Structures are given as C-alpha cells and as structure tokens.
C-alpha cells in the first residue's frame, strides 16, 4: 500500500533538511515509532507499534538511508519483523523537498509499504486506511514541529 | 492447563483431558479419531466442520471443546442407523450428490437437522438450510434433489444388509 502526502511548511528548505536527517526528531513524528538508535552509518534501529482493535503488532525495524541529494531528495528503506505475529513490514520511502519561496518549503513524501505474513492476510482495506491515518498524522506532526521551533534551533 | 471434561458424542460419553484452547474439531479428529468431520477454512465459513449440537448445526472449528460439555454432539459417524445408511445418506448416493465427498458430512448433518424440524421443506427452505455449506464439486443441484427426495414419505432405504 502507498502512503503519500504533500504539504507546505513555513520554514526554509535547509532547516527542513536538517530536521529530516535528525532521526530522533523525525521518528517522533511517526505515530507508534519509539526507541530510535543509530546502528551504523546512515542506519537506525527503531520499534514500530501498531494496533487495530484487539490486534497489536510490535515491529523491530531497521532503517537504511540509501540515497541522498541534499537538500532536496532522501530515499530510505525500512525492514521490520514482529515474530510474535509472524509478520514482516517492508517499506521504501522517498522524500522530495522543494523551496517555494524563501522561508517556505513543500514536502512530498511517498512510502510503499508491504505487510507480509499473518498480519498481511488480515483486513488489507483497514490496514490501508490506518496507513493513511499514519501518513496524515506524520505530516501534521512534522509541520507542527518545524513551525513551532524558534529559528536556528 | 488441561481440563478434564466429558463430551457426549453420538449418544456415547467420552472422558477427555484437554487444553482449553483446543477446538471441538481438533478433539473429534485428533483425540477421538472421528475424522468424518473435516477442516476446510479454519474460520467458520465453509461448513466442512459442521456438527450438530443439541440438534442444531454449528461450526466445530469455532467451538472450544471445553465449551461443548453438557450438550449432545452428533457427527457424521452417528447418522447411520443400526449399521444401515440413513435415508438422507442413501438419497445422496442414489442422486449422485457426492463427488469428492469433502462437504458431504456437513451437508448430511444440516439436512438431518432440517428434516427433523421441517419434515417436508420446499426447495427454498433446503437452499436456506445448506447456505452455510460450500461445495466445490457438484453445483448443489443434486444435493438439493437428494434432500428433497429424502424428505418424501415414499423414500426409504430398500437395500438389504
């Protein structure tokens, strides 16, 4: 399933780029994402929690930044596993930044997410809807975090 | 932790020690060797696991064995009378209502429950009664005809022995 968001923040493109490279800040904008730790050059480990009604999943994920073109393009992959639920989560993420005018940046991101295994069989339509909610929440959080912080921090 | 339970199956009592998480279907097939009841979909939709509980068709794959205590369970193994096919079973044979046979135990039990409630159901009622039993082979026509025939007073098992 595809999660796509396009939104504008009132913040210069360099600051947005800096924010994206700060894995902890970025991860804090993803609902359910916790415990981000660096795991080598351009790699991170994290935990992703997700829940639909009585069914919960806890993925251990590895995030790898595969391509970078500062300050406008970032590509990363995510590979995660929840062994209790015998399920895997794979995602390929692309973020494009576009400077609209000084002090205004358009953020486009696109994530292709696949859930395999036991969870993948259950409620594909509902997972897509939840994924969309996660995407919207992520966009809201990023915008709020960027626009809230005083310049230079 | 296993629980000691007694199940009444086809008129006979069975004493068992089962984990609460085991289904009636698992216990029938694996503990008691009554393999006439089948597992098809593991989610209650196909009907291959159908048994009668106090005369009503239910999905044995969705019933915990511990939860079936104190009720009369009938499986396909309990349908024949004195070693001779029940008239529903005979009708299924006579009308060619059996191909691979996987849906057959469930179909026959549902038909038995129906005819005991409504001795002369019409086609509509038969269709409604078997609506929860999927058959991949026959296209249902012969099954319905067999049940209809078995409901007629003139239909009886004439074969000897």
């Amino acid at each position: 399933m595809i999660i796509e968001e396009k939104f504008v923040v009132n913040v210069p493109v360099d600051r947005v780029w800096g924010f994206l490279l700060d894995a902890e800040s970025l991860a804090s904008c993803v609902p359910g994402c916790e415990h981000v730790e660096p795991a080598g050059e351009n790699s991170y480990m994290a935990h992703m929690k997700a829940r639909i009604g009585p069914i919960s999943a806890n993925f251990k994920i590895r995030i790898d930044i595969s391509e970078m073109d500062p300050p406008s393009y970032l590509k990363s992959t995510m590979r995660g596993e929840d062994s209790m639920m015998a399920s895997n989560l794979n995602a390929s993420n692309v973020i494009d930044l576009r400077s609209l005018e000084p002090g205004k940046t358009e953020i486009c991101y696109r994530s292709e997410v696949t859930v395999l295994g036991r969870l993948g069989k259950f409620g594909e339509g509902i997972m897509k809807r939840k994924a969309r909610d996660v995407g919207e929440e992520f966009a809201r959080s990023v915008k709020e975090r960027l626009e809230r912080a005083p310049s230079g921090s | 932790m296993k629980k000691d339970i007694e199940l009444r199956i086809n008129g006979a009592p069975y004493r068992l020690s089962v984990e609460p998480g085991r289904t009636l279907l698992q216990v029938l097939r694996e503990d008691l060797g009554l393999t006439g009841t089948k597992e098809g979909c593991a989610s209650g939709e196909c009907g291959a696991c159908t048994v009668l509980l106090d005369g009503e068709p239910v999905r044995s794959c969705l019933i915990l064995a511990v939860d079936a205590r104190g009720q009369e369970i009938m499986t396909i193994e309990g349908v024949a009378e004195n070693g001779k096919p029940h008239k529903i079973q005979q009708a299924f044979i006579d009308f060619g209502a059996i191909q691979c046979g996987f849906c057959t135990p469930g179909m026959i039990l549902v038909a038995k429950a129906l005819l005991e409630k409504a001795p002369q159901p019409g086609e509509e009622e038969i269709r409604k009664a078997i609506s929860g039993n999927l058959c991949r082979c026959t296209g249902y026509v012969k099954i319905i005809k067999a049940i209809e025939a078995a409901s007629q007073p003139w239909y009886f098992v004439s074969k000897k022995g």
Partner: protein
Amino acid sequence: MENFEYFEPKTVQEACTLLTQSENGKVLAGGASLVVLLKNKLIFPDRLINLKTIEGLNRIELNPQGELSIGALCRHRDIESSPVIQERFEILAEAASKISSPPIRNMGTIGGGICHADPSADFPPALIALEARLKVSGSKRSRTIPIHEFFTDYYETVLEPDEILTEILIPPLPSPSGGVYLKLDKTTNSVAILGIGAVISLDKKENCTFAGLGVGGAAPTPLAIKEVSSLAGKPVDIHSIEAVASAAVKQSHPISNVHASEDYRREMVGVLVKRALKQALERAGKKVTSS
C-alpha cells in the same frame, strides 16, 4: 492455540472481577468472532471468560416501561425467530436473518457482535435506527450507553477492560411504524459491503413522528445519520429523503478493498439510504409523496 486460563463464572460480577485480575483477558460469548482471532493467532489473551455459564443473559422480553430488553447472549437465530421481535421490531429480525449462515446464527450472539465492533456488522445499523441503548456492567459500576456513542474506531468501543455488555434496550415504537434492513453484499449473507437500517413512525395524520437511520460499512464505525430527524413533523416526501441521503453520503468515508471500492461504497450509500427510507415508509403503511 496459545495457552490461557479458562473460567466459567456464574455471575456478571464474577466475570468482571476475573477481567480486572487479568492483563488482557477476553470474554467468550458465541465464539464466532473471538475463536477465529484465537485460532489465527492474532490475539493472545491470558485468560478466557465464558459468559454462557451466567444465567439470565439470553432473555427477550418487554420490560414494564414497554422497552424491548434483549439479553446480550441471545443468539442471532433467537432474534431472527422471536415472535415479539418479528412483530414489533421487524428490522432487527431482518438484520439477524442476513448474518452469515444458519450455523453461525446458531452460535453468534448479538452482544458478541456489537462488542466485536466490525464496522460492517449487520446489527448496529438496525440498532442505531431504533436508538438502542446498551447496558454495561463493570467491576465498580453499571452504565447505559446510547448505541451511537458506543463505537470509536475499527473494532474498538468505549468498553473499559473490566466491562461486559449485558443487555440491549430498544425503546417502544409508536404505531404505525415501519423498519427495514438493507444489506449490500456480493453473495447472499457474505460480509456486508454496506448495511442500512431505517425506521419511520407515523401519526394518524400520516406525519412522520420519528425517523431513525444507521449506516454500516461506510466508515471506521457504524454511522448514525442525525439528519434523518429532519423528516419528523410532516409527511415524508422525496426531497426530504434525498436530503437525508446526501447527508449520509457526506458523512461516509469508506475503505476500498477487494469487495468494493471507496467510490462505489460512497455512491451506494446514497442509493440505499433512499431505498431504505422509502421501504420503511411503505412498511409503516404509506407511500412517499413526490411534493
């Protein structure tokens, strides 16, 4: 299946206490939804509490206030075949008859279905149209919750971990009333793509005195369409029905899945709401006017 402790309480209080003592215990009613989740290893409760061993939770009766009281442990087939429900709350018997298959209706319970909170379930739209109230017992208190406040998200309700649904109360309907449950599905009685419950009550002058409308399958929860109350106070005409249908479509935000797309569902909400309201009116004994 994973191991869990299994209990057979004799009272509701006992069941609630057992829930408070557990981390993620679940109650077992008919098992039609719960055992599927268990067998498919999607949930891992530490204990299972069988509610069927509690007496008195499966009655269908009119209480002194004239409300219909349905015990949460009533099976779908009990509701389908109950004479008082068929006569006075036809919409409920109709919804029950469209649930899955006869063997599942022999096992599944109305309380279990409501608490499982599948947004496509068949009972909630009918219960919403009837403005049902849900009686819930917990270890410290009991409360009554209007059904339109009960569902919060996919498979989620306002129930606290120690609470059990015990009774469904349906307010009496004035006479004449008509109710209908329409189900859009691919094959008979499969999972609903959409489910619409509509009720209309009239007075002697053929003015509408009450209208109820519930929509299932069009959002993360079953929807109560409040605009339907605009039908009251006058004869029901086609323009008012169309306005209600538009409001229902606006409120809908369905998912796309293998059975139907988002756009198709949204469009069909409009079509079926109109159809259901017209049929409810017909069953109340009137035909919709065109003016």
